[in-house]
């Protein structure tokens, strides 16, 4: 066999692809589902935490800071393993899908809180004064005056961070979640051929490349707003 033939047989084997591609495609729904739920949970929790922090109450701020620093400093895989293997021994048994969802949401929430907070603090204090002086409540001021301005600074880093963390859904394969990577791994074991990995990789690229390209555009569009920073 020539080098190319061997490469094609190993990574681009149509026979193997035909047998397993549907299984691997089934993993897409898991990856997409967990991804969407994590993004929704993580971003809203992050926003809520940032909002609470802007109240400026020490008893609220401290726990938020501990949460944020903890989940920004710990490797996601370590968090997943601690929750997955630790909790059953104290009587709490969670499905691996839920463990994955909780872990990644917490990580995304921690990063999102920081990004939102940076955006909020970048808004001039006069904006709060002006809005409150016209009779807007704290919540109204936050939603209609502060947040739109903060978003400008927050959107590019937030998109990047969200994509990075969503890609971590693949970590679920370590605790038996049948996402794309999990399915590809089982197919790999059964077929003793690397083609399932190629298929999995193609699915990941199809899923995430549009997001990466979109984030690049977004970054360029928002760039003028933070010029010189």
């Amino acid at each position: 066999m020539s080098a190319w033939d061997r490469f094609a047989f190993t990574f681009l084997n149509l026979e193997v692809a035909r047998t397993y591609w549907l299984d691997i495609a089934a993993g897409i729904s898991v990856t997409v589902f967990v991804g969407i739920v994590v993004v929704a949970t993580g971003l809203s929790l992050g926003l809520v935490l940032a909002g609470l922090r802007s109240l400026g109450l020490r008893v609220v701020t401290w726990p938020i800071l501990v949460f944020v620093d903890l989940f920004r400093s710990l490797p996601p895989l370590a968090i997943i393993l601690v929750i997955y293997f630790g909790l059953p021994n104290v009587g709490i048994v969670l499905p691996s899908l839920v463990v994955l969802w909780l872990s990644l949401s917490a990580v995304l929430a921690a990063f999102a809180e920081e990004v939102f907070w940076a955006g909020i603090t970048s808004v001039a204090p006069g904006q709060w004064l002006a809005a409150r002086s016209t009779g807007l409540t704290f919540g109204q001021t936050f939603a209609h005056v502060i947040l739109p301005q903060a978003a400008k600074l927050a959107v590019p880093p937030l998109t990047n961070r969200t994509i990075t963390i969503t890609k971590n859904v693949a970590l679920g394969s370590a605790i038996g979640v049948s996402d794309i990577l999990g399915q590809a791994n089982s197919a790999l074991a059964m077929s003793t051929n690397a083609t399932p990995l190629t298929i999995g990789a193609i699915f990941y690229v199809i899923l995430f490349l549009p997001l990466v390209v979109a984030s690049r555009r977004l970054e360029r569009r928002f760039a003028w707003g933070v010029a010189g920073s």
Partner: protein
Amino acid sequence: MNALAGEFLNLDVMWRVMPMILAGLARSAVLCAVLLPIGLAGGIGAMLLSTSRVRAVRWAAIGAIDFFRAFPPLVLIVFVYAGLPFLGVELPTLASIAIAFFLNASSYFGEIYRAGIRSVPAGQAEAARSTGMTASQTFLSVTFPQAVRNVLPELISNTVELIKLTTLASIVSVPELLHSADLARSLTYNSSPLILAALIYFAILWPLVRLAGRLEHRLR
């Protein structure tokens, strides 16, 4: 409460598995010592290619960068680690991990450097060139140092991410810190080794996370 402490903060267990954990930590340190320089240097290469004056080179580089940013790092590691042996290429595990990290980290660091270069006003290079400095002297002494300073928080944050990524090596059975801790967990039927590993990661990474935050605040 006692059940919790016995499961998660069992000092006795922690003490017993300590040698294993420390060996894992040493292995993780070696991983970082190899992978971080590869990523930082690869990022400079990616930045130079993606800012090339030749359009074809620039577009190819940006395409490759986006491709590897879209690729989950774990998938990349598994792909290189599990795929190459089928080809008859027997690489040491560390080498396949290094390849995967090189592709991932270069892309992320490359984008950070590029943002840094863009943040340096054009007048800086102009002033340097007006004093007779060559293009490469200007880049090395004027543009690049300022670029790095401007994106130092992002460089530190990404370094933190890269250190976290070394835990993925555990999935391909490299006995690094997390892998050792997980092994210790399965031997002791107790989660304290994982907590111990988490504490070690936190002790190392938290100062870096804080430092990045502080620098970002100062630059803003």
